[in-house]
């Protein structure tokens, strides 16, 4: 018992050290642009975990999830940039972004409560687009979002007065901006993982899964499915709002382009490929789908030149081609995802056996 606990503790310490050193290893080995890729991967993991609550736990197919990312990002951009001349601190903007995104979750969730499956997917897809189109057009008659030009010169995240946009020297060790953001994103990702795990194993988490399994039976058991579903939408949206705020501070620029339908689909793919409803699987899905395309972008040109002496396929189209093939392969051979919940794996095996 004690050795088990000690083993677990040792494992956690090792993982902690590895995560702390990761940017240095990646930065020295591959270059700091890869640490930036890592930063984005963490943002995607946060998004995937948020969507996992809606899709994975509660079984509500949401194709407009990126709208909450947009809400968080634009709230940060509006409250901390020269656009309105406001420069709110990050500790005020991020929680507010989470809250407002959560409210949007309830607002967009409420009209969909009676819908299931395909119908729900279509309506949420519409909502996602509505939010993007609103942002795109809210520059007239009153300029709120600056329309398609987006908002630039957004304040970088400052922690205790230290901007994360500049290299920080601590005891002679230089921490470039992308490293600093890495640590911030990592901390918030871990927080979101923690919240997800706690929610999954709770009265609320069980109610979500019950709704996914059989909504009528859940109602007959006395679950107020309306409130519990709205809670799923709100919690998922909250995570999206946090990720959005971080994105705005990190990029120092937001525009409607970043919040298109493809982004929603991408996050959904992370959840489905990784293993719906299984937190480690979803994290894996997020990391893979965020990092592999970048690896391909960097690797495709030199590899083709080495193999054929010239570039046959440009990396961008190759990326989509391989992405599509990978999706098909995973759905055919691992329909429950790359790393499914043990429970779901059993379910798929049982289906196959029939």
């Amino acid at each position, binding site marked *: 018992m004690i050795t088990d606990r000690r083993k677990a503790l040792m494992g956690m310490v090792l993982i902690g050290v590895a995560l702390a050193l990761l940017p240095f290893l990646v930065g020295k080995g591959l270059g700091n642009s890869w640490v930036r890729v890592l930063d984005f991967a963490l943002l995607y993991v946060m998004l995937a975990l948020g969507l996992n609550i809606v899709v994975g736990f509660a079984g509500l197919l949401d194709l407009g999830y990126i709208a909450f990312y947009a809400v968080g990002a634009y709230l940060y951009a509006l409250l901390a940039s020269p656009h309105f001349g406001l420069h709110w601190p990050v500790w005020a903007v991020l929680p507010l972004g989470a809250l407002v995104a959560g409210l949007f979750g309830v607002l967009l969730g409420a009209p969909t409560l009676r819908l299931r499956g395909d119908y729900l997917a279509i309506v949420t897809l519409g909502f996602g687009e509505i939010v993007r189109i609103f942002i795109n057009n809210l520059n007239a008659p009153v300029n709120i979002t600056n329309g398609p030009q987006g908002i630039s010169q957004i304040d970088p995240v400052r922690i205790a007065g230290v901007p994360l946009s500049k290299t920080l020297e601590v005891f002679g060790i230089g921490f470039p901006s992308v490293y600093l953001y890495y640590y911030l994103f990592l901390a918030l990702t871990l927080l979101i993982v*923690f*919240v997800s795990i*706690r*929610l999954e194993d*709770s*009265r*609320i*988490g*069980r*109610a979500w*899964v*019950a709704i996914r*399994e*059989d909504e*009528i*039976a*859940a*109602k*007959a*058991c*006395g*679950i*107020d*499915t309306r409130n519990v579903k709205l*809670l799923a939408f709100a*919690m998922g949206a909250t995570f999206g709002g946090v990720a959005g705020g971080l994105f705005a501070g990190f990029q120092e620029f937001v525009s409607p382009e970043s919040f298109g339908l493809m982004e929603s689909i991408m996050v959904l793919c992370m959840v489905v490929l990784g293993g719906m409803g299984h937190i480690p699987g979803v994290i894996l899905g997020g990391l893979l789908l965020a990092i592999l395309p970048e690896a391909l972008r960097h690797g495709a040109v030199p590899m083709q030149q080495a193999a054929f002496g010239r570039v046959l396929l440009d990396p961008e189209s190759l990326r989509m081609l391989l992405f599509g093939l990978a999706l098909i392969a995973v759905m055919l051979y691992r329909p429950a995802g790359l790393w499914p919940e043990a*429970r*779901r794996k*059993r*379910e798929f095996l*049982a289906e196959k056996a029939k």
Partner: protein
Amino acid sequence: MNELLLDAQSISKSFGGVRALHDVSLSIRRGEIYGLIGPNGAGKTTFFNVLTGLYTADRGRFVFDGAPLNISAPDEVAAAGIARTFQNIRLFANMTALENVMVGRHLRTSAGVVGAVLRNRATREEEAAIAQRAHELLKYVGIHRHSNILARHLAYGDQRRLEIARALATEPKLLALDEPAAGMNATETGALKKLIEALRADGLTLLFIEHDVKLVMGLCDRVAVLDYGEKIAEDVPAEVQRDAKVIEAYLGGVVA
């Protein structure tokens, strides 16, 4: 205390031109086992669905436990103290037996998101109580050894029992069973009969729909017979069996 637990007053429900229920009134006394029988399509399940809030009645009302029953939503009906099972078993297939019963405790517990995340003392104690009660109920219905098996992998008879355990977890005053013996063999039906008698002995009132006439006649204190959406008889089983209208509508082939 009122002797009547449930008083259904002139319940009517139509689907398009089909009169599924017409002016059905019946009353269930506290502590009795009340059977609802009738040929296929007589409106038994419709009555259940109206009572438990899945459908809204066109006319009529229910008085439950001395107060008019607000039947706007199934979860409110469950909160009022009516739990049900389904004719075609509806379990949470990919949750374990234990988790299924734990979901049934949702109604009588209160931990929210904050409690779940912080896992403070109150939440931990509530979770422990939920798990303990779920174990007790699984033991009560006799499937405790299958606690950690997914509901979908349970044997048919055990799934029925699990559904009853889940319904009991909501602390009902009235338990409504929709054809609990459907598809069971004689041994399983006998065991079910024992379980239902035990439930009544523990103070529960039961309403059930059943096709198995022998089971109904042997178990129920009173029986109502529906035919084409109308109640044609309501009495103790011995009297119902002698009723000419009932014999004509339903029992003819069985008794004669």
